[in-house]
């Protein structure tokens, strides 16, 4: 079950303060009389409220993330010192970042391109590898979930192969496809296929018996059972699989590109290391994190569109 539940990364932090804040009855006068109550106002109403409540909103919601980021920068500054240790200071990195993002899409030969091109190439590899994995993994997951025989047939294989680092497959990819780029895509394919097979299969196995009874009583055709019951019921599980797959793929592509070279954010990190350009590496880390976060948020949003209440009365 654990792998098949949605968690928005921001949910945990956002819901805690709102849950602890019942709407305060009474107007601003009550709030002014009881300063403690100012902290307990819902943040949705923050825009049109007196400064005291806005300050309360900032205190609860706005400040903690800023403090977290501040702490990171402080620790970073302490480690970097004056920059002599090799780790650049936050200011130096910031200046370098302005330089890099001034022209993210320059092209100066095959191994010297802007950070934008590198990110796009990586995303393209992820999209291709992931897309192929979806084409194979989702139908396979449906088949495994629907038929016990196939489930018993494939489960040992999946259990054996899933814990293997996808990078271990890279040499096989290089051997078979005779190229760095297809080998990287092959690695992404391998790492993103497991979550999709497993989550889809679990989703099919967990379709509530009530829905299947409805199908049996109505005597629906196999096609109707699939389109009206099986597919919509499995979709939330499937999308969880997609989310896990994309997350893993984005982790793996950096490592794969370090090994294969070419254009890509992973290769860029390695290239900048060879140039001893550590500021670029730090910038790359932030960029990789931001892209991963955006992918995650987009997929969580997508999943929430297809999640319906359960049948239980």
């Amino acid at each position, binding site marked *: 079950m654990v792998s098949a539940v949605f968690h928005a990364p921001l949910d945990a932090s956002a819901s805690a303060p709102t849950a602890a804040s019942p709407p305060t009855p009474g107007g601003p006068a009550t709030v002014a009389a009881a300063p403690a109550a100012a902290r307990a106002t819902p943040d949705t109403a923050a825009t049109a409220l007196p400064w005291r409540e806005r300050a309360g909103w900032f205190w609860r919601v706005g400040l903690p993330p800023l403090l977290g980021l501040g702490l990171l920068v402080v620790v970073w500054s302490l480690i970097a010192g004056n920059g002599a240790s090799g780790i650049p200071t936050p200011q130096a990195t910031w200046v370098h970042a302005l330089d890099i993002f001034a022209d993210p899409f320059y092209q100066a030969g095959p191994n010297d391109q802007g950070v934008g091109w590198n990110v796009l190439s990586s995303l393209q590899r992820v999209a291709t590898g992931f897309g192929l994995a979806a084409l194979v993994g989702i139908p396979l997951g449906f088949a495994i979930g629907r038929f016990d025989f196939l489930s018993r047939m494939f489960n040992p294989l999946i259990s054996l192969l899933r814990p293997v680092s996808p990078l271990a497959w890279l040499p096989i990819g290089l051997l078979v496809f005779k190229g760095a780029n297809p080998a990287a895509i092959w690695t992404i394919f391998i790492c993103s296929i497991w979550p999709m097979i497993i989550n889809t299969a679990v989703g099919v196995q967990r379709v509530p018996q009530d829905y299947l009874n409805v199908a049996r*009583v109505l005597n629906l055709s196999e096609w109707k059972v699939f389109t009206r019951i099986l597919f919509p019921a499995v979709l939330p599980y499937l999308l969880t699989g997609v989310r896990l797959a994309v997350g893993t793929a984005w982790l793996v592509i950096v490592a794969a590109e370090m090994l294969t070279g070419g254009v890509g954010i992973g290769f860029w990190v390695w290239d900048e290391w060879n140039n001893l350009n550590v500021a670029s590496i730090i910038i790359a880390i932030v960029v990789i994190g931001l892209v991963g976060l955006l992918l995650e948020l987009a997929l969580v949003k997508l999943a929430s569109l297809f999640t319906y209440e359960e049948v239980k009365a």
Partner: protein
Amino acid sequence: MSAPYIQIDRVAQTFRTKRGNFPALRDISLTVQQGEFVTLIGHSGCGKSTLLNLIAGLTRPTEGVLLCAGREIAGPGPERAVVFQNHSLLPWLTCFENVYLAVERVFSERENRAALRERTQAALALVGLTHAAAKRPGEISGGMKQRVGIARALSMEPQVLLMDEPFGALDALTRAKLQDELLDIVASTRATVVMVTHDVDEAVLLSDRIVMMTNGPAATIGEVLSVDLPRPRDRVALADEPRYQATRKAVIDFLYTRQGHVEKAA
């Protein structure tokens, strides 16, 4: 009116569990006439739903035979519509689409799309839910969901309506309202109904016969009681009716005096 429609002949049902065989039902024999309203009543765990599932064809008996219109029940079929205990609407379809799915299955070979839509609308109108047609199950109340479930079952124009505690999850007022609606619908469609309930008043108000079941495991039919009350029935007028009270007393006596030791037995 008096042709035997459902015949249950010496049926037993045993479930295989991890801790060995569990005999749920034994030696069940019952005949339901066409147009009859029969309720199955008994303590929880006595196999009422198991028996209903057997009539629906969702499960097969370990022993004995079930016949519907003279043919053996080999599986579920649209002539035996089921209203499930927890409504079982598909949450991704609107109320209209939920009913349409059933209508389409039964009538699409004979009728065009406009006629199918009309049937769907008519079924929703029958339960007073025309206004909620475009809503999803998550957006309507429990009573409304149950009514959509009934509309879905009725839209198939079934020979038999099988209802598994259809009003069990509802509050008392909504339940009474839906019972009255069901009485009207059954009077106009003359459907045969087999209903599982644990509500004595519901059983007496709605039924022609009440089938009282003994406690499980290995439950069987303890007694069948004919409800000799004229139709149409009115719940307010019935409250003072001696025959109503006598019937009610007989059911309560069976459930609580003779079959009352359900906890001790279990």
